[in-house]
C-alpha cells in the first residue's frame, strides 16, 4: 500500500475515534428537555427573550422559538409537530383549525392603531370615515378634513392576525378593498412613513415619530384605553398547546404569564400585560368583565 493510502486510513480512524469520544463526552442532560414554539412573527421576540431567560434559570432546558406565521404555528401544533403554536388570533378565527383540539393560553395583549403618513394632515377619524377609506368610497384626504392628497391604502397580508383584528374591530367587519399588501409590520411602517397619502395599521409598539397614529371617535390609541376596551382594536397574543401539553411547555407558558415576565419583558416589548386587562374577550368577540369569566 502506498504512503498516501496509509495516511488516508489513519485519518479516517482518527476521525472515527474523535467522533466516538465526542459522543461519549457530550452533555447528556440536553437530550429530552427541548420544547419548540412556532408561529406568529410578532410574538417571536417576546417568546425568544423569555425562552432565553427560562433556559438560563433552568439548566438543561432549551426553548426553540421559530417564526413562520400564525397559520403555520396553529397547523403545526394541531399536527403535533411542535409543542407550542404562537398565534395572533383565536384558533376559532383561523380556517382549517379545530379549536377543540387545542388549548388556549393568552400571554399578552396588543393594541392596533391606524397609522398615516404625517403629511396627510389628519390625526383623528371616525369609524365611519375609516370604513369609507378602506372600502374605497373616500379616495382623497381632503374628503376627511386633510390636505388635497390621494389616499394610498396599505394592507397586511390576507390572513394575518393584525389584518383580521383590524377588519373585525376597526372596520366593524367590513372587508378592505384590494390594495397593496405587506407581510410585516416593520415594512408597513416604513412604507407609510415614506409614501405620501399612505394609511395602514400596526401594533402600538411599531408607532414611532416617522408615522402618525390616528385617534378614532376621539379615543386615543393608548394602553390605558385598551385595558378598558374604549379602544376596541386590540387582540390577544396566544400560545396554543395540544390538549395534553408537555410539562415543560406548560411550565414555560406559566413562566411567561408570571408577574415577573409580564412586568418586565412584556412591557419592554410594547405589549399590554394580560393582568392589566379590566375586561376579557372570547373568540366570538363577546366582552365580559374580568373576574366574571376567567379561564
Amino acid at each position, binding site marked *: 500500500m502506498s504512503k498516501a493510502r496509509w495516511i488516508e486510513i489513519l485519518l479516517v480512524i482518527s476521525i472515527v475515534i474523535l467522533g466516538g469520544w465526542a459522543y461519549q463526552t457530550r452533555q447528556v442532560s440536553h437530550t429530552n428537555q427541548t420544547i419548540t414554539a412556532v408561529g406568529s412573527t410578532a410574538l417571536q*421576540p417576546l417568546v425568544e427573550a423569555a425562552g432565553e431567560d427560562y433556559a438560563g434559570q433552568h439548566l438543561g432546558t432549551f426553548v426553540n422559538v421559530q417564526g413562520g406565521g400564525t397559520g403555520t404555528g396553529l397547523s403545526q401544533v394541531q399536527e403535533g409537530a411542535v409543542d407550542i403554536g404562537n398565534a395572533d388570533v383565536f384558533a376559532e378565527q383561523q380556517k382549517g383549525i379545530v379549536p377543540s383540539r387545542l388549548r388556549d393560553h393568552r400571554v399578552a395583549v396588543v393594541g392596533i392603531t391606524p397609522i398615516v403618513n404625517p403629511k396627510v394632515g389628519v390625526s383623528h377619524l371616525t369609524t365611519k370615515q375609516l370604513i369609507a377609506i378602506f372600502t374605497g368610497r373616500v379616495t382623497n384626504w381632503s374628503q376627511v378634513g386633510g390636505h388635497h392628497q390621494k389616499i394610498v391604502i396599505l394592507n397586511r397580508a390576507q390572513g394575518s392576525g393584525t389584518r383580521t383584528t383590524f377588519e373585525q374591530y376597526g372596520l366593524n367587519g367590513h372587508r378592505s378593498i384590494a390594495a397593496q399588501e405587506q407581510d410585516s*409590520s416593520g415594512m408597513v411602517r416604513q412604507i407609510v412613513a415614506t409614501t405620501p397619502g399612505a394609511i395602514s395599521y400596526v401594533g402600538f409598539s411599531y408607532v414611532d415619530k416617522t408615522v402618525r397614529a390616528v385617534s378614532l371617535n376621539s379615543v386615543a390609541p393608548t394602553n390605558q384605553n385598551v385595558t378598558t376596551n374604549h379602544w376596541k382594536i386590540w387582540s390577544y397574543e396566544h400560545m396554543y398547546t395540544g390538549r395534553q401539553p408537555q410539562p415543560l411547555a406548560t411550565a414555560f407558558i406559566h413562566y411567561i404569564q408570571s408577574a415577573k415576565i409580564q412586568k418586565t419583558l412584556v412591557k419592554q416589548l410594547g405589549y399590554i400585560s394580560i393582568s392589566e386587562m379590566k375586561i376579557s374577550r372570547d373568540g366570538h368577540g363577546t366582552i365580559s368583565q374580568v373576574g366574571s369569566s376567567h379561564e
Partner: protein
Amino acid sequence: MNPKLSNRIAISVLYVISGTIIVILAALLGYIIISGLPAINWHFLTSPARAFTSGGGIGIQLFNSFYLLILTMLISFPIALGAGIYLNEYAKQNWVTALVRTAIEILSSLPSVVVGLFGFLIFVVQFDFGFSILSGAFALTFFNLPLLTRSIEEALAAVPNAQREGGLALGLSKWETVTHIIVPAALPAILTGVILSAGRIFGEAAALIFTAGQSAPALNFADWNPFNMTSPLNPMRPAETLAVHIWKINSEGIMPDAKAISSGSSAVLVISVLAFNLLARFVGKRLFKRLTAS
C-alpha cells in the same frame, strides 16, 4: 454605412454597456458599504444579537452563514459534480436525457419559498431533524443543485474534445480521462460556478426561514464537541443566518437600532462574499497550476 464605421460604433456601444454594468455595481456596493460601514465594529461582528434593545451584534449569524455554506457545499458539490459528469460525458442524447435536463431547469425556476416549505415538511417534520442547520443544508442543496450541475456540465463541455481523445489514445479509461484530464482542465470554470452558487446560498433567506429557522440560540465558542447543543459545530441546532437576520430585522425588528443593524449586516454580507470570491479565485489559480502542470 460602411463596415468600418459600424464596427467602430458597435464596439463603442459594447464599451458603454460594460461600463454601465460596472457603474451599477459600483453604485450598489457603494450604497451598501457606505450606509453600513458606520455600524461595523469588532463588537458588532462578534456579539450575539439582541431581540429588542440596541447594541446587538451578528456574531452567531455570521458563523452560522459560513457553517451552513460549507455544509451545503459538502453535500451538493459531489452530487452536482457526479451529475454534471454523467450528463456531459456518459449520457446518450435521447428523450430520457432531455427529460432529466428539463427537470433540472424546472427545479432551478422553483421559487425558493416552495423549496423551503418542501424541505420543512420532509426534513423538519417527516425526518424529525427539527429546525436545524442540517435541514437548512438539505433545503439549500435542492436549491443549489440545478445551477451547480448546469455550470459544471457547461464547464466540462467547454474542454476541447482533443483532450478526451488524447486521454483515450494514451490508454486511459474514460473515467480516468475525466478525473485526471477533463475535470482539472475545467477546474477554473467549475470554480466560477461554485463561487456563483455560493453567493446565492450565502444570501438565500426564503428557503431557510422554514428549515434552519429564525432564531440563533447562544453558542459557546469554547465547546467544539459537535454533539453538544451550544457547540457551534452541532448540525442539529437551529441557526439563523445573516440573510435571514436581515430579512427578520427589516420585517419585524423592534430594536431601536434596527436600521443600523440591517445596513451593517448587509455590508458584512457583501464584504464576506467579496472576500470569499477573492479567496476562491486565489485557491483556484494555485490548484489549476498544480493539477495541469502549466
